[in-house]
């Protein structure tokens, strides 16, 4: 007696195939659109490779010891280089970093830890975000009015401060984000042992959040090194090595801008070589930021 053996046939349904026909419109559209985003991704990467190719071919051909040490050539002169511009860029970025990193990190400490939801913190955070979209040339105009007009001269100081205005919001927001990643438990443990706010921040939060803070800081420095608009009428340009900080100062980006429009091949070759150096500086900072930023608290 085994009624399970009896085949009870289910009513016959017309079961559709579970395979999708590849030429059905839905499936075809799927394939086409997939090809389309692939195409978009490839198109978007063309400019980067084209820029790098041009820099290596055009700039690399001219990049030698003379180019990175000599002074910029005038008009019809052959040879020359942009040594003073490299020094100027590094000095002004240094000034900007020296101002914006301490200020930005301290502001971030307030925003992330001391009083994250106070009125001041919310307003500052919002304004910092607005400032990141602030046109960089306006930083130049602002510093021109504040420093160049009052001191009566274009200077490396003015250029550095203009770059600092642009770096400050980036450093602040990145440092705040990094400090927020520090687990609350660690802070609680330190507070539980009777630490003051300052001790918790200096001995727990800063060391733990350091990789993230450094990433933000280095990226901000890289961005500042490539900036040119804020230097245009704060640092101006100079054809000589800088002797002091209170005089017009050359920078790589302004040199590229000035030389790009000149009708002389020599200057245009130098503009490419200077671009190569500038992009290398920026890329080195970017790679550095990636290496440093491998924090253990990131998911």
């Amino acid at each position, binding site marked *: 007696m085994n009624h399970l053996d009896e085949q009870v046939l289910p009513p016959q349904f017309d079961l559709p195939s579970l395979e999708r026909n590849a030429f059905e419109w839905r499936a075809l559209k799927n394939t086409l659109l997939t090809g389309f*985003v692939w195409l978009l991704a490839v198109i978007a990467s063309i400019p980067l490779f084209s820029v790098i190719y041009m820099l290596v071919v055009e700039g690399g051909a001219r990049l030698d010891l003379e180019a990175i040490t000599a002074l910029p050539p005038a008009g019809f002169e052959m040879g020359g280089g942009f040594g003073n511009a490299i020094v100027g860029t590094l000095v002004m970025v240094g000034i900007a970093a020296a101002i914006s990193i301490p200020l930005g990190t301290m502001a971030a400490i307030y925003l992330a830890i001391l009083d994250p939801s106070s009125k001041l913190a919310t307003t500052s955070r919002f304004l910092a975000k607005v400032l990141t979209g602030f046109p960089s040339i306006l930083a130049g105009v602002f510093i021109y009015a504040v420093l160049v007009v009052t001191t009566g001269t274009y200077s490396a100081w003015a250029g550095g401060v203009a770059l600092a205005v642009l770096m400050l919001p980036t450093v602040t927001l990145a440092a705040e984000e990094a400090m927020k990643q520090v687990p609350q438990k660690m802070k609680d443990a330190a507070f539980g042992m009777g630490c003051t706010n300052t001790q918790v921040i200096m001995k727990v939060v800063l060391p733990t959040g350091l990789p993230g803070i450094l990433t933000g800081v280095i990226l901000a420095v890289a961005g500042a090194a490539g900036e040119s608009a804020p230097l245009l009428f704060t640092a101006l340009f100079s054809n000589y090595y800088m002797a002091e900080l209170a005089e017009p100062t050359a920078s790589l980006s302004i040199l590229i801008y000035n030389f790009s429009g000149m009708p002389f091949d020599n200057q245009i070759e130098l503009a490419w070589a200077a671009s190569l150096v500038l992009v290398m500086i920026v890329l080195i900072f970017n790679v550095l930021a990636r290496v440093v930023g491998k924090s253990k608290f990131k998911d």
Partner: protein
Amino acid sequence: MAYDPFKSASSARTLSAPPSASDYLKDATFRAFAYFCALSILLLVGYIVFELGSQAMPAIKTHGLGFVTGTTWDTNEEVFGVLPEIWGTLYSSLLALLIGGGLGVGIAIFLTQGFVHAKIEVTFRTIIELLAAIPSVVYGLWGIYVLIPLLRPGAEWLHEKLGWFPLFGTELSGPGLAPAALVLAIMILPTVAAISADAFRRIPYKVKEAAYGMGATKWEVILKVMLPTASSGILAGMVLGFGRALGETMALAMLIGNVNNISVSLFAPANTLASLLASTFPEAGQMEIQALMYAALVLLVITFIVNVAGLAVQQYTMRKFEGKK
């Protein structure tokens, strides 16, 4: 004498002690300093607005609102108007947004919807991030010597065949709107792509699985579920990218031609507020500088409005998926 638990618990051999007076002092100083630094951002923004406003004041008084509607910029006659620049700024940024925004969203989809192996995804993400790292002047140089020669034959052909169409109404004689807008598009692409990709990543995985469970194809899921859900985030990316484009200076100053001209033609030279500042400021006299300060103020107001709008949309998106942020 009263019982003092601290006294009996402490002995000469322990290191633990309550914070000393100097610890409290250091703490108070440190906190005051941090407070001041947070305040400095506020003061900086206030100072920028005040300084640009007061510098522009004489020009505002002499030119009034006619400055914004005037179309000539003549130093000798001291007639200043920035309508062509406002037009050029908005037009070039809109064109850049059309190209860069579309590409950016496409790439955000490509990077977040599992089209490629995670390693290739990282490679493409790095490429897009590096696009943002290249300095503006380098793009300008590349535009002059690579992009303009590349565009010229196509532009000539379009002008010859379709010259009656306003977009192709003039010849591309070198610098012009088309190369400027293309470079601008490349520059805002990373912003749009990063913010849109972030919006896609915020969508709970369940949403996608539910759609797949109903038998939707990959692209039906993307177009009918993911895109609408991420739409506010994408909008934020677009608006912030637009804000970036409005303030971009050097590449435009090198590529747009710096000609006071209102034209819808893609190949006509034009000017933007930022590149007007960059190209005329260094040699400007007293009156012209005041007018340029007014132009800077106009640019500040436009970018401020656009950026605040973008940030507001972004904030709204974050709240939507995470409750209160």
